[in-house]
């Protein structure tokens, strides 16, 4: 194993991680605004495009957490494939491309009444458990190398990985069987 390269600290010169914190703040604000737009906008296509922003923000967070492999996977799988798939879904179901007042049901009040207490509860529990604990109490935040991720997949998690392959195959066949016109 290349211990020297895998444990190269990210910006060891800034112990307080100021640039990362600024980047995180910007990313978090953009992501939360975009996520709110995904669930409130009147236009399905706009919702899909706001979703791209959320997913890109998640990829940015993966980079901040030092995992480049997952960030690239996120961009490839989510932005490259899933959003395109969702847009195809919008197109094939002939949803109105313009604004659509019927996109929401009349349960908005109930939905807020479920989501807001959920957020408050999770926020309280998280604050109570972790307080101001740092991501790394000793040492710097390190880059997780792709080699380590692959060692883990093809070592410890080999059986679940094969199960995931079977799942993808089953999903592929299932989707074709369901969507095909007979």
């Amino acid at each position, binding site marked *: 194993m290349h211990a020297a390269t895998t444990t190269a600290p990210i910006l060891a010169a800034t112990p307080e991680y100021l640039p990362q914190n600024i980047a995180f703040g910007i990313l978090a604000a953009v992501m939360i605004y975009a996520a709110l737009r995904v669930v409130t906008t009147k236009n399905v296509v706009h919702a899909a495009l706001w979703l791209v922003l959320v997913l890109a923000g998640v990829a940015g*967070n993966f980079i901040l957490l030092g995992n480049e492999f997952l960030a690239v996977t996120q961009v490839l799988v989510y932005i490259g494939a899933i959003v395109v798939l969702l847009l195809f879904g919008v197109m094939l179901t002939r949803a109105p491309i313009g604004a659509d007042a019927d996109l929401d049901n009349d349960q908005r009040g109930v939905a807020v009444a479920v989501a807001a207490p959920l957020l408050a509860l999770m926020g309280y529990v998280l604050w109570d458990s972790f307080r101001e604990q740092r991501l790394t109490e000793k040492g710097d935040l390190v880059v997780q190398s792709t080699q380590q991720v692959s060692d883990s997949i093809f070592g410890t998690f080999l059986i679940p990985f094969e199960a995931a392959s079977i799942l993808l195959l089953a999903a592929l066949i299932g989707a074709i069987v369901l969507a095909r016109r007979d």
Partner: protein
Amino acid sequence: MLVNQFLFLGAALFAIGVYGVLARRNAVAVLMSIEIILNSVNINFLAFNAMHNQGNASHADGAVFALFVITVAAAEVGVGLALVLMLYRTRKSIDVDKIDALKG
């Protein structure tokens, strides 16, 4: 960086996704909200992975779990959209409020 800043972001995205699942009527929009929920979980996985590593990058378990979540999400969207298409073909509508055949 604090652990909690990532966990709070994940919690906020999760709550927004839950709101979307409950308040949306279009089935494709519901699927988008589910994607937001799954992504919020992935942020938590990687934050805990980084916390578990504590500066020596010896564990990748959280990253592998996040990878599995991405895989399952891809499968879910594929099958989900096929179901939505079937629904549209038989019902001419993807309004999840109108699909209440079990209601009697």
